[in-house]
């Protein structure tokens, strides 16, 4: 997937763990892990909204387009 999720970097910058973020935004740790590891196929606007609100960032800080080989 050419879309990279930079959640790890954002959490590191804010000294926050994934579990803490999961608790604050009300999303299960399992689902947030799927997002963090880049295994998610789609992200809801409501999830994006909650993460950006909590981490005080822009969607562009969380998602980055990194050109690579196209997925089959």
């Amino acid at each position, binding site marked *: 997937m050419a879309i990279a999720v930079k959640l790890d970097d954002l959490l590191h910058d804010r000294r926050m763990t994934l579990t803490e973020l999961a608790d604050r935004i009300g999303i299960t740790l399992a689902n947030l892990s*799927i997002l963090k590891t880049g*295994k*998610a*196929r*789609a*992200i809801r606007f409501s*999830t994006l909204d909650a993460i950006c609100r909590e981490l005080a960032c822009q969607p562009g800080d969380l998602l980055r387009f990194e050109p690579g080989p196209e997925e089959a």
Partner: protein
Amino acid sequence: MSTPYSAALPIARVVLKILIVLNWLWGAAILALLVVMPNEQWIMSAFDLTPSPETERLVMGMRAIAVLGLAVVPLSYVVFKRLLAIVDSVRAGDPFVATNASRLQAIAWALLVLQLLSLVIGAIAKALSTPAHPLNLDAGFSINGWLAVLLTFVLARVFAEGALMREDLARTV
């Protein structure tokens, strides 16, 4: 939402299990007719026939029908066994998976071959039937049968699409 289906699924499960057993018994019965009792005289006396070229043709035709009837057994097994697996997956609460799409596809192909066999059996029966010895078999072209084939192929595609959509949803955060 699941209340109306709560009785249907256990009933379907029991019926399918019975059908699987009956299918094997049916197969064993045909096999017995073909192997254990191949005696032409026995068949002629059972059907009250007198030896003649016409009755010999009739006996040969009936044997051919029995062989084709034997081919129906594994095909029916494919249908019942896969349908049972689909019913079980619904009971487990996870029916929209790619496996069920392939199961339905296999059922559709089995139903298609069964319809073709029915056409052949019907044609043989029609060719053998004479006013003196009418052969009335419940075989031949059936609009409902072919509709079931079409419906199952379409349902298999619907399930395949549904499985993809569900997978997408499962990985939506």
